[in-house]
């Protein structure tokens, strides 16, 4: 399967126009790399790959709203919520998209990361996407009443009210429609590493944060 970068120039121009930032690297995904990464993770990952690739292929030509809806729905359906303790037998584990799909289970940041990587792969501008730490107020009667949570936010323009992609509420809704979430802090792949865009995998800095770790893992799975 060809990469997006090899598609006819018209499609590329459209993509660049959509992004509005020509300085950003061309984003795409690599089916062959994904395939070999999935083989390493086991038969479950290989089985989960065709639907994912079909989705990504479909979404390359779609607009952002359509992409958000489809990607959000895809991962909310494929991954069942479970704690890191039960899935990975660890207090806190940030899984890559293929790892989460292979398990079919994951917690809030696994959803957010998988959606984030997929949207970037199909061509959504990185500046519009942010991963947000939020406090989620749980339905009445639940204990505890609120808990730490992570969602993916989409800003059509900087400073605008974002659309929220979440696993608690399956629909993509504007932030104002989510009174149960209180944002605490947000970051993005480019935001954290502004000014050090050429950080290589061998750089000792690249391996010191949990975010950077999962991001490298994701890129190695073919989400470029």
């Amino acid at each position, binding site marked *: 399967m060809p990469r997006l970068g090899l598609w006819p120039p018209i499609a590329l121009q459209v993509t660049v126009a959509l992004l509005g930032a020509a300085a950003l690297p061309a984003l795409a995904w690599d089916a062959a790399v994904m395939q070999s990464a999935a083989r390493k993770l086991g038969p479950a990952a290989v089985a989960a790959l065709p639907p994912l690739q079909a989705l990504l292929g479909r979404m390359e030509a779609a607009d952002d709203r359509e992409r958000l809806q489809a990607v959000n729905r895809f991962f909310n359906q494929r991954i069942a919520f479970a704690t890191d303790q039960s899935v990975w037998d660890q207090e806190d584990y940030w899984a890559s998209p293929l790892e989460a799909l292979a398990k079919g289970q994951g917690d809030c940041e696994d959803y957010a990361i998988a959606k984030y990587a997929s949207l970037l792969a199909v061509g959504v501008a990185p500046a519009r996407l942010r991963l947000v730490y939020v406090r989620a107020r749980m339905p009445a009667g639940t204990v505890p009443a609120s808990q730490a949570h992570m969602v993916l936010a989409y800003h059509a323009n900087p*400073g605008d009210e974002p659309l929220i992609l979440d696993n608690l509420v399956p629909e993509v809704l504007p932030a104002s429609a989510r009174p149960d979430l209180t944002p*605490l802090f947000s*970051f993005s792949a480019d*935001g954290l590493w502004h000014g*050090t865009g050429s950080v290589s995998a061998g750089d*000792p800095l690249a391996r010191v944060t949990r975010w950077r770790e999962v991001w490298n893992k994701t890129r190695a799975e073919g989400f470029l």
Partner: protein
Amino acid sequence: MTRRIMLLLAAVLLAALLGSLWIHTLAARDALQTQLELRNQDAATALALSLSQQDGDLAAMETVAAAQFDLGHYRRLVFIQLDGKKIFERQHALNPPTAPQWFIQALPVQAPPGRATVMQAWRELGVLQVESQSSWVHDTLWAACSRTAALLLALAVLALGLSVALLRGWQRPLASTVAQAQAIESGRFVIAEEPAMPELRHLTRSMNSMVRRLRQLFDSQAEQVATLQRQAQTDGVTGLLLRRQFVGRLADRLANPDVPGSGLLLVRLLRLDTVNERLGFAATDRLLAATADVLSAYVQRVPGAVAGRLNGSDFGLLLPVTGVSTETAHSLAAALNASPLATAGAVSYAVGGVEGLLGQSASAALAAADLALARGEASQCAVVEAAGVAAADMVGARSWRLQITAALDEGRVRLGEFPVIDRAGQLIHLECPLRVQFLAADGTVPEGAGGDGYRPAREWLALAMRSRLMPRVDLAALDLALKAINIDGVPRCVHVAQDSLDAPGFVSDVVSRLSLAQSAARQLSIEWVETANNASPTVLREAANAWRTLGVKVGVEHAGASAQTLTQWHSTRVDFIKVDARHVQGAASDNAMRGYAASLVSLVHGLGLKAIAEGINDPADLDAAWDLGFDGATGPAVRVTDSER
């Protein structure tokens, strides 16, 4: 070589020191830079997190940021709104670094500012940038760099010291090996001590075994020469000297004024032809050998006595003292005639001789003895006659001493000049024996055949020796030779006597004279007689060393009597060997002579020395000398072809 190794070592150590210092400092710089970058980023993230909790209240945000900035180690903190407007900024001048400026410029530290997004609810407010103080990086680097440099320098000095010690240890065996090699080159054979270093030990062992083989080679050659000498000088049947040798010894003895007088006896085996016919060849040889044994008994008993076979039937016996000849002749005759064959009347002997020989020529002495023998033969008994007194006016020893001393004091001495030439006929040097003027009894210069009274050494040398005048005589000759060289630049050769060499202070007296005429000294040769080696080898070595250092060539004259003695000269370090006339004269006609002379020459050449033939009085012998490989020759038949002389 050692110094070059040291320099190389120091350079390598310095390069290693600088290299490791540079790598170490770069690594430290990179680590510190990374730390600074992490710190910037962590501080920005933490502060952005705090500011995001202020719900967009800019005043509260600035207060929180100011508090963080004022209490922390920051250089710059700035908050920029999404529209690019700078909301607030804090700056703090760089703390002045303690590291020198060149160091800071050589190692720039560039850590990008930390960035983090500040939010109000779901909206992004802006970006926070944080830069930490970085002057401490250079200070830390500088301190670490200085410490490391000091440590590495100490290590380098230690390593250099160790290497120097090791090299010193290696230098000694190396030097001894080199010395051995140089000794071999200059013809001395030294056995070196085997060093502990394996490579050098192998080398030294091989060189030692080579030296031993060479030595063996020389020894066997010397032995061969000795055999050849016996064959050349002695009669095969009787083992006695041949006529030529016997006559030579006789002439030497008669010419030596130091000997009071000699006796010469001749023994003749009468009618040898008839005896030969009757007894046969083998028995005759045995008879001749038995006769020789009787003579040899005297040679062994009387020191200085010489026996020889003069021709088929004649034998000669030279007695070193006078007054015993008659008695000896009678006992000889008795002993010979007591043999079984003689008592049976098969053979008979005649004995005759002369007594009190001094100063005559050998042939005159032989003729006189022959006459006596003839008389003895006629009278059937041993006849010994007294020889006429030889030297014309032999004065007393005391008067000789006075004459020589006076001549030396008044400078009535001069040098004879006899050329020594090389193969091309060019002059090697002039042999310069001293002539001393003797005055007549009335103190006037004598006239007539003797000329102006200057007499050759042959006439007064023994008296000078007995009077212990030799050091003065030799120094006088040396002075004259140096003076003459200064005038005409022609190389000259003077003789020193063994007595002079043994005299205390003589060697250094010569050295001080040579030092005063250094350019002349380089044209001078000094020689001594071969027998000098028996007396004082240490003195000879010292003399040769001291004089050769000043450019003088040192040689041995009248050499060749024994091959063993000849091989000893390589340790004394002389330059040339003059082979005595008796080993050279007749070389043209006598094969045995030639064989011995050739072996002498090859032995001398093997020692790395020059061989010069003495006493060449026959042009045929001169040609023979060149054929034999002599490097030089002297004697009556020698003429310099160079027109300058």
